[in-house]
């Protein structure tokens, strides 16, 4: 697999140069970040998602944005607690996070997780946390529009058949449908839509705290139902924009034994590779 070969080669050189600043570190130098990168629990702890996290950092560093992470001061937004009905735990988490964010006078947040994105953007304001919150696909799209991100001429995705899976908490929940698609289109890929897409998109099966429990009795897992849409599309790459969708789609590909035919990549990874980062 050529795509994967390139990834490994690039990573070893880039990673050594990459220093990821924390807000505390910037503050100590009397600076503050233009934008906070909210990493999220999946992006912090899940090995597959960590690679996406690092690619986002590479993009941020490449375009020269003064960004920072909270590091060990970041806590779960409380989203899975809220969707599972534990409003107490959710609000405890939210208020702890808001205290830290407000303490650092954070104004703008970018996150790679649509669940964090939704919660920070929609559910924190009434608890005292008011920030401009964007998803990484929106940031990347605006960087492309501003001309700050230019893909390499002969990048590996050109002409490739790629499909995009809408995360529920980005799409239906917040009406972000175009940013990820515009990124892919700007790379001259052959963007092909899934049978169920945009507002009609099918969930990967992880939302509403399902990620943390076994599914109820049924005749199929939701991610299998979804991966069948992907297989039907004949795409070689399915682009994701959510760490939970990433896990579910990869599991689906594995169960269907399609690892040789279908790759699951986050929009951030595709962007980073197309830009030679």
């Amino acid at each position, binding site marked *: 697999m050529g795509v994967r070969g390139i990834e490994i080669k690039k990573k070893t050189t880039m*990673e050594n140069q990459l220093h*990821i600043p*924390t807000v505390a570190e910037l503050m100590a130098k009397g600076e503050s970040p233009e934008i906070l990168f909210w*990493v999220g*629990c999946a*992006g*912090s*702890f899940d090995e597959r998602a960590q690679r996406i996290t*690092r690619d986002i950092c590479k993009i941020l560093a490449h375009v020269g944005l003064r960004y920072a*992470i909270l*590091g*060990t001061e*970041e*806590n*779960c937004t*409380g989203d*899975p*607690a809220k*969707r*599972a*009905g*534990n*409003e*107490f*735990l959710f*609000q*405890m*988490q939210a*208020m702890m996070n808001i205290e830290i964010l407000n303490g650092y006078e954070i104004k703008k947040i970018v996150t790679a997780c649509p669940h964090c994105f*939704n919660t920070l*953007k*929609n*559910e924190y304001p009434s*608890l005292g946390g008011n920030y401009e919150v964007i998803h990484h696909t929106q940031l990347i799209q605006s960087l492309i529009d501003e001309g700050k991100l230019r893909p390499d001429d002969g990048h590996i995705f050109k002409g490739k058949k790629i499909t995009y899976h809408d995360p*529920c908490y980005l799409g*239906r*929940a*917040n009406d972000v449908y175009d940013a990820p698609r515009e990124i892919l289109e700007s790379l001259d890929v052959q963007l092909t839509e899934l049978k169920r897409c945009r*507002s*009609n998109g*099918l*969930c990967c*099966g992880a*939302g*509403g*705290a*399902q990620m*943390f*429990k*076994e*599914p*109820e*009795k*049924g*005749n*199929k*897992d*939701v991610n299998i*139902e*979804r991966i069948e849409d992907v297989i039907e599309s004949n795409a070689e790459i399915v682009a994701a924009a959510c760490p939970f969708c990433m896990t579910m789609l990869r599991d689906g590909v594995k169960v269907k034994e399609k690892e040789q035919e279908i790759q699951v990549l986050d929009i951030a990874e595709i962007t980073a590779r197309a830009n030679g980062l």
Partner: protein
Amino acid sequence: MVSQFIFLGILTIALVLFGRNAKKIYNNIKLGKPTNRTDRKSERLKQMLLVAFGQKKMFKRPFPAILHALVYVGFCIINIEMLEIVIDGLFGTHRAFAFLGSFYSFLIYSFEWLALGVLLSCAVFLIRRNLGHIYRFQGRELTKWPKTDANLILIAEILLMSAFLTMNAADYKLQQIGAEHYIQAGAFPVSQYLTALLTDTQASLIFVERFCWWFHIIGVLAFLNYLPLSKHLHIMLAFPNTYFSNLEPKGKFKNIDSVTAEVKAMLDPSLPPPSGEVARFGVKDVQDLTWKNLLDAYTCTECGRCTAACPANITGKLLSPRKIMMDTRDRLEEVGNNRDKAGNIQDDGKSLIDNYITREEIWACTSCNACVEQCPVNIDPLQIIMGLRQYAVMEESQAPASINAMFSNMENNGAPWKYAQADRANWANPE
């Protein structure tokens, strides 16, 4: 004269009965908790015009949308004809609007085509529903009564339209033979083809015309009184229900204010603990829902678009968003009937959770909002599911074991998994 009195009597009884049933439904909806849905009036009006009046969301599925639009337009416009029928019935006139001349002919001309459109659409709907093997017309919540209800509505509409066209055919024939009272009025592009099926004697033609006239008006009034008992209420409630839609992003779930007060007191001991009676957290029964949730339940016409899009349902889980709405309505009717019998709200030992909606159903939800997105009249089954989960977790501490483990991970490590908080940024410092 006698027939005018009979007409007045039937009309009065029908309207009084309907008024009583409407009042009952209104009182039931008022059992819900307050929620503010009267702000942003112009946006609300726009929602109503687009979604209810313009049927915007129906067109996600074009074929049934076109047939439904025919029935809908037919229903709305033929109601002008109803006005004439009522006037004729009360004052003993015949075709009271005939003085409009060529405009009247145009009206009858369009009613005839619309009536045919409604009739054919309903016939196609009947066939699709009963023989079509369509996913959303199956499902375990569509038991005997909901299936019968759907078929009764379609058959009633077919009968009403047939009576309307037969009446016109007889009228047209009577006009042609110059019968007394049957003034030359109207245009009959559809019913002219039915005239051949009718007798030629004036007396029997008058009988057919009168019979169809009475059948049509009594049928419409009976149908009006059938609405409150059936799923068909959407023809009225779709309008207020879309007006009072949730205008926030679908992902935004409301924060519970009483929890905020308690959490604030917990985090800051200097604040006084919240006083007063602690309300129930979450939803155990219909009274814990908002009035909008209850209006949703009465508006649901059980079309099943929600269920056909639900990832849990289509992969064989018990959850069906349509069933959530049907259960809510059934339970609300039960609570309302108990109240009417006893004079006040009685504890009947039952509740929405467990007696109607099981735990297995509520925990199968992925909160993906597909059901909310699909609903052509902006019903929100997800809010009800989340309310039930809140009750199960906060009032009963009854969550699936793995969910409880996720909660304690979050409390102890600040993450839903069992990782140490100190390791959170390890990814940033590869050795």
